[in-house]
């Protein structure tokens, strides 16, 4: 059989000439995440630089390796592995051991993406598959949060960052005491709220000067970057709006029922990874539904599950699992929200 050359391309209609390609969209998403990376580095220091570099490198290397094993052309040039790497790094604690980060990058791409057939075939958001693997494997390391804006953040690594491969990270207690900025207790705003009923102030929460994962702290910055992508139509604005809206409403409802135990809707929006998840992960084009109504259902479902896990479950944060669950039901949502074909009528019930 003669080999097909690139000159003849067989495509189905509509034959629109558009400058948009997968590679270009992905590149713009990466641009939109760069401010978040920069802010993460500003707040947590050089450990985040290493974290980002290792995650992206691991993702690219795994993608290249998988393509090589499958005997096809390497697909690392489409930027999608870079997005996965950055997203993974942004959801991890700043001082997460680098060897574990590399494991996470490998799992994200190999298990979350390439096993399904590569870009466009994955059922779940690859970065979240990697993070779920890390959370289940190393539950202690992944809750090793450090304070924001420590004085020495640009001159030294957080001690856990440079843990030797396959060994346990050292205890952070002594280092945190030495680098202490305020009365930091090794907990994120969510953990403090859940376990000690201490609600932090909202303004620093939204600005992002709070302890947390490397890139999920600044709600406002995430919204701005998301707004850029939405304006350029690189993401579907309905998904974050539906997810944030339903999370805030559900949170507020719980708050009104029992204000002593449950925080209000604004806290729900500003804390944890909800913003990052809603804007950059739930909107993953491959693993979200395609119908307009389906997109609203999908977003609202994820927001609700997030609040249920946060308030009623055992874990302080539920964004990761809610998005993975949302991904899992996305094909089903697509199926039940198919628009009626123009001119077609619903079949009348057959009566005997």
């Amino acid at each position, binding site marked *: 059989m003669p080999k097909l050359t690139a000159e003849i391309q067989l495509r189905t209609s509509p034959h629109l000439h558009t400058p948009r390609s997968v590679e270009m969209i992905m590149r713009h998403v990466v641009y939109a995440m760069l401010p978040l990376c920069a802010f993460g580095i500003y707040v947590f220091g050089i450990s985040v630089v290493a974290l980002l570099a290792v995650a992206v490198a691991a993702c690219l290397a795994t993608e290249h390796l998988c393509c090589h094993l499958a005997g096809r052309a390497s697909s690392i040039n489409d930027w999608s592995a870079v997005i996965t790497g950055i997203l993974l790094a942004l959801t991890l604690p700043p001082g997460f051991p680098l060897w*574990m980060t590399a494991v996470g990058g490998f799992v994200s791409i190999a298990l979350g993406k390439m096993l399904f057939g590569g870009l466009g075939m994955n059922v779940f958001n690859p970065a979240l598959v990697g993070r779920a*693997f890390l959370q*289940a*494997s*190393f*539950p202690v*390391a992944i809750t090793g949060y450090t304070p924001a804006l420590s004085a020495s953040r640009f001159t030294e690594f957080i001690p856990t960052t440079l*843990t030797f491969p*396959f*060994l*346990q*990270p050292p205890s952070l207690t002594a280092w945190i005491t030495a680098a202490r900025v305020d009365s930091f207790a090794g907990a994120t705003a969510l953990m403090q709220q859940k376990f000690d009923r201490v609600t932090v102030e909202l303004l620093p929460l939204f600005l992002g000067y709070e302890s947390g994962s490397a890139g999920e702290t600044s709600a406002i910055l995430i919204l701005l970057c998301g707004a850029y992508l939405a304006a350029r139509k690189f993401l579907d604005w309905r998904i974050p709006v539906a997810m944030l809206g339903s999370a805030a409403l559900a949170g507020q409802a719980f708050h009104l029922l029992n204000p002593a135990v449950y925080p209000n809707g604004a806290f729900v929006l500003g804390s944890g990874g909800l913003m990052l998840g809603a804007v950059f992960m739930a909107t993953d084009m491959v693993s979200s539904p395609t119908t307009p109504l389906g997109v609203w259902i999908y977003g609202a479902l994820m927001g609700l599950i997030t609040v249920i896990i946060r308030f009623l479950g055992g874990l302080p944060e539920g964004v990761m699992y809610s998005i993975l669950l949302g991904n899992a039901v996305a094909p089903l949502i697509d199926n039940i929200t198919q628009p009626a074909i123009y001119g077609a009528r619903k079949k009348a019930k057959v009566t005997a």
Partner: protein
Amino acid sequence: MPHDHGQPAPSPAENMEAFLDGLWKQNPVFVQVLGTCPTLAITNSVSNAVAMGLATLFVLVCSNALVSAVRKLVPKQVRIATYILIIATFVTIVDYLIKAISVAVYKALGPFIALIVVNCIILGRAEAYASKNPVGKSILDGLGMGIGFFIALFSLGSVREILGAGTFLGFPLFGPNYQPWVLFLLPPGGFFTLAIWLMVFAAWKDRKKRREVKTMAEAA
């Protein structure tokens, strides 16, 4: 791969084959992918895997022997009911025996001892082999399949315990600073480990087949 169903005139070579088939070529877990429920659930440590493997081996050998002994008497219509009765008997016996030997092992295996009765390997061998072959060969088949199952559980249990806890049969392997991969002790770890082993087997078989095709082509 066809079985030698049938003519009861076993030669030593045939007996050997009945035994070896289950061990490797027809391995119940890695090749037939049967009995995955206990394979996934009970392999989070080597000791649990060993206990489960031995219990299943015992039930498999005993039920194969008894099914084969009564094979000419059982009418076709009630054969499955009879087989299940026989299997359930030996499972109950194993249940008592384990409880008598060690309560700790009994607690670790939990409901999965009783569930040996629905392990499809056992009914499968009764129906496909023991009901058509003499007692001696059926026992050998039970031994082969049982040991094959044992090997599979042992391989999964080893990988999961070594990675997930850094120990083998409770002895630490890598020193106190080893970071255990907790995931491998949890249920998803069972799926991952089974998938890895199946992948290894598939790759091995694929390679062998390709080599056979190559030698055949060269011969022709």
